[in-house]
């Protein structure tokens, strides 16, 4: 298998691009969680905002990724560093599954449990942190899982605007019409997606309530 020989021969670069890739995915998922989870909680508590918020996240999802990268390129501060731009775009794509699952998870908490908790005199934040979030955590994390897997795939396209990551190999391979080079990017990316999926799944099982 000369793909693997190629990867071994270039292992320094494969490793470097994998790390870059991880960085893009890691930061964007983190930002998407920091924005998406509170937003999901917010729309679960105030249902009249749920349609506009979910619709906006949906629309973002429909923008072709290459076009979004292109649109953002001329933006002053962002365009200076293409990795910033890539992280922003990936964050936007990761929002929908995280917001939607947070919303679904919180809404799914048994209304009798909430009523009992409220009647007992739990404050809104005690209800959120001791009841709603622990009961919704596995649904929220399965949204994060979907977001991570999408991001690993999308991040390969970030190489088109020079943001680095495993997409570099893919684009270079395409230009050189060399399958080995394409696969040197695609295989580690696929593995990364599998590992990330498994990793978040593991955390999800650990945090699942009895």
């Amino acid at each position, binding site marked *: 298998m000369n793909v693997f020989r190629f990867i071994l021969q270039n292992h320094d670069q494969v490793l470097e691009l994998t790390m870059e890739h991880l960085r893009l995915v890691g930061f964007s998922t983190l930002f998407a969680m920091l924005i998406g989870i509170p937003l999901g909680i917010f729309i679960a508590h105030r249902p009249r905002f749920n349609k506009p918020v979910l619709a906006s996240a949906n629309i973002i999802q429909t923008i072709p990724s290459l076009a979004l990268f292109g649109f953002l390129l001329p933006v002053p501060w962002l365009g200076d560093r293409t990795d910033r731009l890539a992280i922003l775009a990936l964050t936007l794509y990761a929002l929908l599954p995280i917001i939607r699952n947070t919303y679904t998870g919180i809404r799914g908490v*048994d209304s009798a449990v909430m*009523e*009992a908790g409220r*009647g*007992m*005199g739990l404050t809104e934040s005690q209800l959120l942190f001791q009841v709603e979030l622990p009961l919704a955590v596995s649904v929220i994390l399965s949204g994060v899982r979907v977001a991570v897997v999408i991001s690993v795939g999308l991040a390969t396209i970030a190489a088109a605007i020079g943001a680095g990551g495993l997409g570099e190999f893919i684009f270079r391979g395409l230009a050189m019409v060399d399958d080995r080079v394409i696969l040197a990017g695609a295989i580690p990316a696929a593995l990364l997606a599998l590992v990330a999926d498994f990793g978040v799944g593991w955390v999800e099982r650990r945090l699942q309530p009895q």
Partner: protein
Amino acid sequence: MHPASAPPVIEFRDVSYRVAGTQVLSGFDLQVQSGETVVLLGRSGSGKTTSLKLVNRLLTPSSGEVRVNAVSNAEVDLIRLRRGIGYVIQDVGLFPHFTVERNIGLVPKIEGWPEDRIRTRVEELLQMAGLTPEIATRYPHQLSGGQRQRVGVARALGADPEILLMDEPFGALDPLTRDELQREFLLLQQRLHKTVLFVTHDLREALRLGSRIALMDAGRLVTVLTPVEFLRSTDSLASAYVRALGGDLESAAKRGPS
């Protein structure tokens, strides 16, 4: 009416509640004295549950006021008000991710009781509710319906509130378990003398548990009677309830195999 030497623990003063154009409760006046069990009896939609939720402010009256210990409950801090009132509902609403122990000890815990005092309190409450100590470490889904409701009652008594609000607590149980829990409720009440507002649509339960029965219909209070008075009442709705209860067993037995 009841001699009102001490101020009532719970008092509804001309309370109305409207939601989305529907009048759920109108001109509701009721006094609950310390240590008595007042049963709100009526069919569904008569405003029983609404009245109950106005006491711990899960709902706010459209007009009138609800006084708890002689103070309008709108003037009391919401969280303080609720922590002083035990609340038991038909669906129990135990926290599924907490053990029985944590469920019962939750209010004492957020009230900042020391760990060992909470532990003693939980043991005491388990025993009071007729539960064995092994149950403490189980999760709600591992319990039977009757056990779950016992835990629900124990949890409501957690921080020893003076008032208990009970919304058809035994409604979803099988007849034998219900009978058992009613009997234990009476024993418990003899010991604890809580002020209880109890909702049911079952006259048998109302007669058995109530010091007084407040009969409700279409958002209005029809009459307040002791169980003995209720059975003799000439009020058309009250006597309709009594007839339905009497006819109940007879006609069921007569029907036989078809």
